[in-house]
């Protein structure tokens, strides 16, 4: 079975919510929709306090090339445009809407009917994806329309679809693949058309046999789409590792996947593309897994963007008393929250709630040079060294040792028997090296 070659770890999978069908979460009283839910320049609001908005109405425009439109996820009145704390822990501008009776924007098809045919041109598809504010839903939140335009001089050969979901606990993509398989396939076909490629491969780790079976069967009806089972290994969902696993190509350091003829999209994104192009529906909701040892009922919710995290936790039975940490995302790359009013955004794949005990870090000792971190680093870096020289502020040396190639997957930190906070130190190093490089240019 295929997988990537260098490094990788296999944390316990804990997919405790994998059997829970997607449930629609009811709307909260207010939604806070941040203007920066994507990589790049924040969107610019086109509504103001007191405006009435409908569900799916454009409320902020992505004006820069790398930016994305934002739509209202509810019907109601804009109560203010103000700073809210998002999952990064920083204050970010958001449109706050007081929710009233739902009324959809005209032209949006909210039915469940599957629409297979798509007669739009390449350009029309890209425009539609752009208009509907689609971004990468695996966590990186890169605006999708940018990825669907192949830069001049480059050629796309493969569209790779990320159905790996290699983070422990998370099951939102798994459920989506099972419950929206047809829509997903149509979405992939549309993306293939936009890119002008005739081959698409869906990579799914073999801990999801039901999804693999269902998609493989269905793929026969769609030209050019194949499904590839992958050996379970973290971080297989990282772009470069997925490309290596599926087509055995290595993206050079500092380059994008298109360099090796590949474009990677997440299954969630592909579904959103389907809805955008075929149903005229902007990205205003997504599947969010609520899971962990400290929620009563692990679930998968179809959640409107802007819903506070606390609403999801309450819908899963509320916080248990000895809760130690609430994480937006998975346990390996997710962000710990200190405020549960943080809104769900386009990139929120899960909410993980763990106990005090699980939140404790292992006791810290000297690095015993066991070389485990070196062996498992999927980018073949030397985490122990990067951490050490970052700590000593030897940033030139850190750059020479390719600290910027670190994708912050956390594998080194996870494996270290001495409990070294490797990634904490490397992050500081990366930030400083990044600054150094920017100043130089």
């Amino acid at each position, binding site marked *: 079975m295929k997988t990537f070659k260098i490094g990788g770890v296999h944390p316990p999978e804990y997919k405790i919510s994998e059997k829970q069908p997607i449930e629609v979460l009811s709307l909260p009283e207010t939604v806070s929709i941040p203007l920066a839910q994507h990589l790049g320049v924040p969107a610019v609001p086109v509504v103001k306090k007191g405006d009435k908005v409908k569900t799916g109405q454009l409320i902020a425009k992505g004006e820069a090339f790398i930016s994305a439109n934002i739509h209202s996820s509810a019907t109601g009145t804009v109560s203010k445009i103000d700073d809210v704390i998002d999952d990064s822990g920083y204050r970010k501008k958001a449109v706050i809407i007081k929710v009233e009776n739902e009324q959809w924007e005209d032209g949006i098809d909210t039915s469940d009917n599957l629409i297979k045919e798509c007669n739009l041109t390449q350009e029309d598809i890209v425009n539609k994806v752009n208009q509907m504010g689609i971004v990468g839903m695996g966590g990186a939140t890169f605006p999708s329309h940018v990825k669907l335009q192949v830069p001049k001089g480059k050629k796309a050969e493969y569209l790779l679809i990320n159905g790996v979901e290699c983070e422990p606990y998370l099951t939102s993509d798994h459920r989506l693949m099972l419950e929206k398989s047809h829509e997903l396939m149509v979405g992939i076909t549309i993306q293939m058309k936009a890119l002008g490629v005739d081959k698409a491969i869906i990579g799914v780790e073999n801990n999801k046999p039901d999804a693999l079976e269902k998609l493989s069967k269905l793929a026969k009806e769609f030209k050019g789409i194949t499904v590839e089972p992958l050996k379970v290994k973290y971080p297989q969902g990282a772009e470069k590792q997925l490309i290596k696993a599926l087509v055995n190509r290595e993206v050079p350091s500092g380059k994008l996947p298109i360099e090796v003829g590949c474009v990677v999209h997440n299954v969630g994104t592909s579904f959103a593309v389907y809805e955008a192009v075929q149903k005229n529906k902007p990205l205003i909701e997504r599947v969010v897994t609520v899971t962990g040892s400290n929620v009563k009922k692990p679930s998968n919710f179809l959640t409107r963007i802007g819903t506070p995290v606390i609403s999801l936790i309450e819908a899963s039975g509320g916080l248990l008393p000895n809760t130690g940490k609430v994480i937006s995302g998975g346990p390996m790359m997710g962000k710990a929250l200190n405020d549960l009013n943080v809104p769900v955004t386009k990139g929120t794949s899960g909410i993980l709630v763990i106990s005090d005990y699980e939140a404790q870090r292992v006791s810290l000792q000297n690095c015993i040079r066991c070389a485990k971190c070196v062996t498992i680093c999927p980018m073949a870096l030397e985490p122990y060294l990067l951490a050490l020289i970052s700590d000593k502020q030897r940033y030139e040396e850190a750059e020479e040792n390719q600290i910027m190639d670190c994708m912050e997957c*956390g594998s080194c930190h996870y494996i270290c028997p001495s409990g070294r906070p490797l990634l904490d130190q490397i992050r500081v190093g990366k930030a400083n090296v990044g600054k150094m490089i920017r100043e130089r240019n």
Partner: protein
Amino acid sequence: MSLLTVSGSPHLHADNSVRKIMYGVLISLIPATLVSFYFFGLGAIIVTLTAVVSCVVFEFLMQKYLVKGPVTIFDGSAIITGVLLAFNVPSNLPLWIMVVGSFVAIGMGKMTFGGLGKNPFNPALVGRGFMMISFPVQMTTWPKPIPMNTQLTDVVTGPTALGVVKDGVGRGEKVSELLPQVPEYTDLFIGNMGGSIGEVSAIALILGGLYMLLRKIITWHIPVSYIATVFVFTGIMWLINPEVYIDPVFHIITGGLMLGAIYMATDMVTSPMTPAGMLIFGVGCGVLTVVIRLFGAYPEGVSFAILIMNAFVPLIDRGFKPKRFGEEVKNG
């Protein structure tokens, strides 16, 4: 609501720790320990216990009263140093020398650099090197093995198999004349020969090594490259002149090679970090061992070979980086 912990990702930690690794090493040492107790009897038991207790006590005292930092004697590393140190001495070593050796191993070998992880040299080998130089007579008086001996009588002593050959060749005797004076190869393999407590049984040491491989405590690179280098190098010399240079099989199953290659050279703290670096390290240890054995003053060269290579580790780590992802693009 109680306060939530906020810290950087990852929020999950593998089920491993320094202690787990160290106790894994100790478990792997069980076969070799049992064999040595079998052949060298009570003497071996007492010397080993003395070394272990001394190492742990010295580590405790230094951490508590000199470093004034956390006491980590239960992480198992001091116990390992004790066992390995005892493995490297004869079973009739006066106990006070063992205590002094343990003091040097822990003090000079480990604590003075900042404790486990910071020491450039293998602590047990530092201790042994010190004892070899300071007490050469006591350190090279090897009791002959007596299976299941429970008496602490004065046992018959004699040189090691390597020593017999080295001295004989030095006097101008032929290897074929010397061979009858050393034990059968099967005995050498099992450990039925004179030598340091833990080095004699190749089979028990290999067993322990396999266990560590399985538990992923060590990788194959250092032991295999080390032993293979000794085999090839002594093999070439043997082909050139079998009457002066004894055969390579003899070289790999006698002396401290197995103990050195499997346990001393693989010490994670004092060996390189990348597979390529480990291979170079193993080859270097092998070459130095043979050079000392064949051309040096001592019949055995494992300890000094490894200590010398320990000193090169920072250089090797600099020179042998992992091949980065995406460095050499091979597409197709």
